[in-house]
């Protein structure tokens, strides 16, 4: 494996590309009991229309990437992939996002056996009429669980408010209606297109032996590469937002909100993406952190309950800022936020605020490395975008005040902003039977 060392964060990185295209990354963590492996596929809920090479365009049902993730655990011998992990004493899981599906496990014992199993089961699809039907009931309950969750609703509606064409406005799990239409053929179609080694990356963290890792990978990694190009179609998204406001009622005690600011830097060349993201992150912290004037004013006036949450989000074909919180009058909060940002553009951000925030971000980034899963999940998703997560600190150190003030001119534009609100029910009746 190729080895490199990042002295700023004191981490080594090993890399290998297999013959069939699978990329393998390994970060050693000496003294750690647990080892973690995550196998990512460049396929997410946004991928609803695609073609292979010169082939015809295929449209699939909403929620299929997530459905496929659930079905991956079924094995041809009618067992479940969890069974072997349980036998090895490993904890396994999987998740689907807008752009990536990932299969992972963590264990303190039998790592290489578990790694072999991970690669094998993900390379072994097995979808039947029966097992697909059965999953519909389970996923329907998962969807309903999210629908009952106001945190999920307010976030989901914010994306719907910003985007009119981009598939990000569609829930990752789809809807109960859409998943009931899914068939084994459709699943195979997606699997055969996207689940090929050229479209997958493996990331490993732990106190391991790189030769043993490679031996295990070579032994399990039997899939054939797909030599045709994958074409993904996502309808062109206009700059304009879809709806200025989406408001619903739910069983919450105080209104919750998500404010979104649409952004267009996803169009930037890859080499500028990381710095743009870091500058945007810093800018967010400067404006919304508890050490700033905005939060101080809103908190003391009782306009906001607790802190703001959120940050800058960016991927292949979308980028935006999300700002969330709870408030009695969310629209008033948005008004104050926009007013504050307008003022900030006139006065500019001061050097001392910038330096202090930057320092906080450096410490925060360093500490995040203590979470193996945070490191692994982020590394993978940045890699699929063509970026190296480990470069973050180096790029952060070089950011200057000028970069921040320039970015302030194009981010947080009121014209491209939306608000999603979840309000309490009009008359809440709670009864006992």
């Amino acid at each position, binding site marked *: 494996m190729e080895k490199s060392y990042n002295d700023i*964060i004191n981490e080594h990185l090993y890399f290998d590309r297999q013959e069939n295209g699978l990329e393998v990354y390994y970060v050693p*963590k*000496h*003294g*750690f*009991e*647990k080892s973690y492996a995550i196998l990512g596929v460049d396929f997410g809920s946004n991928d609803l229309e695609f073609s292979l090479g010169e082939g015809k365009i295929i449209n699939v049902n909403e929620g299929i990437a997530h459905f496929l993730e659930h079905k991956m655990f079924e094995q041809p011998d009618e067992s*479940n992939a*969890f*069974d072997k*992990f*349980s*036998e090895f*004493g490993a*904890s*396994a899981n999987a998740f689907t996002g807008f752009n990536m599906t990932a299969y992972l496990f*963590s*264990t*303190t*014992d039998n790592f290489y056996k578990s790694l072999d199993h991970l690669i094998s089961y993900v390379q072994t699809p097995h979808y039947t009429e029966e097992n697909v039907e*059965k*999953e519909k*009931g*389970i996923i329907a*309950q998962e969807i*309903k*669980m999210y*629908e*009952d*969750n*106001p*945190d999920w609703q307010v976030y989901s509606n914010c994306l719907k408010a910003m985007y009119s064409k981009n598939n990000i406005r569609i829930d990752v799990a789809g809807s109960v209606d859409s998943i009931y239409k899914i068939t084994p053929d459709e699943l195979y179609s997606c699997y055969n297109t996207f689940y090929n080694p050229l479209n997958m990356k493996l990331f490993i963290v732990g106190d391991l032996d790189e030769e043993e890792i490679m031996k295990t990978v070579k032994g399990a990694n039997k899939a054939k590469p797909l030599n045709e190009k994958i074409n993904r179609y996502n309808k062109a998204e206009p700059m304009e937002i879809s709806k200025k406001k989406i408001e619903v009622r739910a*069983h*919450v*005690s*105080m209104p*919750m909100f998500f404010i979104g600011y649409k952004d267009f830097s996803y169009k930037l060349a890859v080499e500028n993406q990381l710095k743009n993201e870091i500058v945007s992150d810093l800018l967010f912290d400067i404006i919304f*952190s*508890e*050490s700033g004037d905005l939060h*101080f004013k809103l*908190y*003391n006036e*009782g306009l906001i309950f607790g802190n703001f949450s959120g940050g800058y989000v960016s991927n292949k074909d979308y980028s935006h800022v999300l700002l969330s919180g*709870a408030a009695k009058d969310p629209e008033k909060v948005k008004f104050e936020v926009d007013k504050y940002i307008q003022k900030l553009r006139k006065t500019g951000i001061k050097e001392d605020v910038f330096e*202090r*925030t930057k*320092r*906080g971000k*450096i*410490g*925060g980034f*360093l*500490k995040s490395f*203590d979470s193996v899963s945070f490191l692994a999940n982020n590394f993978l998703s940045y890699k699929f975008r063509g970026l190296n997560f480990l470069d973050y600190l180096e790029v952060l150190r070089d950011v200057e005040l000028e970069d921040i003030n320039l970015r302030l001119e194009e981010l947080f534009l009121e014209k491209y902003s939306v608000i999603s609100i979840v309000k309490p029910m009009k008359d*809440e009746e*709670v*009864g*006992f*039977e």
Partner: protein
Amino acid sequence: MSDLRLFDLGNETTLGLIKTDKFKSTLINIYFLRNIDRKEITRLSLLINLLSTGTSSMPTIKDVSKRLDELYGMDMDMNLLKYGEKICTRFRFFSVADKYIGREIFKDAVGFIKELLLNPIVEDDGINPKMIEVERENIREEIRSIINDKAMYARIKCIENMCEGEAYSISSLGYLEDIDEITPSDLLNTYEQLLSTSKIFIAVEGDFEEEQIVETIKSELKFPRETIQKIPREDFKKTVDEVRYIKEVVNTKQGKLVIGYRTNIDYFDEEKYYSLLVANSIFGGGPHSKLFRNVREKESLCYSISSDTEKYKGIMMVGAGIDPDNYEKTLGFIRKEFSNVKEGRFTDDEVKNAKKNIINNLKMVVDSNIGETDFTYNQYISGTYFTVEDVCKKVESVNRETIIKSFENVDEDTVYFLR
């Protein structure tokens, strides 16, 4: 497990040092342990919120936050945690390890903690009167917003009903009806009691010179001490005469079913207690469990379903998210699996997998400084002082007979359904 050294600082104050160079952060936890008390709980909740809004030398949230930024993004959080019928006020601080920023920051971090805990704003004989109205509103909202997480709400309501009249039913968030009556002066009283009569445990985990740390902590964090509270053991035995059924309607999209059980097990009875942990794991402790494999995978009745145990009060809980129309059916299946465990209808593989799952999770504790310090603290308040290796051995040693025996007196107490 990393090197743990305990130092008795006198007056029921203990310092635990865990030395390791595995992490990029240094963690400092301060735990204050008391008996949970209905009259005190809301005050504690309000107090910790108020303490974070300012100190004598950092009078506003802005000042406190700025200082945290200056300390390279130091994080802090404060929580009230229930351990049986004991309430722990935990203050956690995460600092970056000195070697990653090329300067010594530990002493400054402790200085911040000293300021926060030992130098609150006291005006007119009360804690930070200027901010009390804002924080009263925040606590009100925190309590009201429990309903936002239906699964959590259902669990809390089940316990509240199951343990009515017992101290275990007291909610760690506090009570709405108490809030308006609490004055800044009451809070000053609570603050003084917290520091002077609680059992204190300070845990520090990171890469440091032991002597230096002990000196710094001893000299900077001197808490004023008086007669320390006696903390008796909980009453963990309860005979259930009849199962109680409670239904609540709030018109959710998904029903939340919660079942509370009494285990009647003394955690000092090691064979029984560790057997119970394995029995619970077989029952509903993960994707290897009966509840997951049968009620979810086989019957497709739910997405989330699991069981868990509580050590000090002797309680076991099952939670499941289901279609409201499947209440009777799901209850039936859960009861079937419960009796399968009770009557020994589980395979050797199920026992093996359950043990592996528990041991794997235990071993992973040492890979996080949060995990390690909380584990250490749990052992300290149990009075057992086991290491992770010790516990793994005890789990490994249980067998079919002891597992069945441990479930003998586990009884269903209350079934709660939110729809």
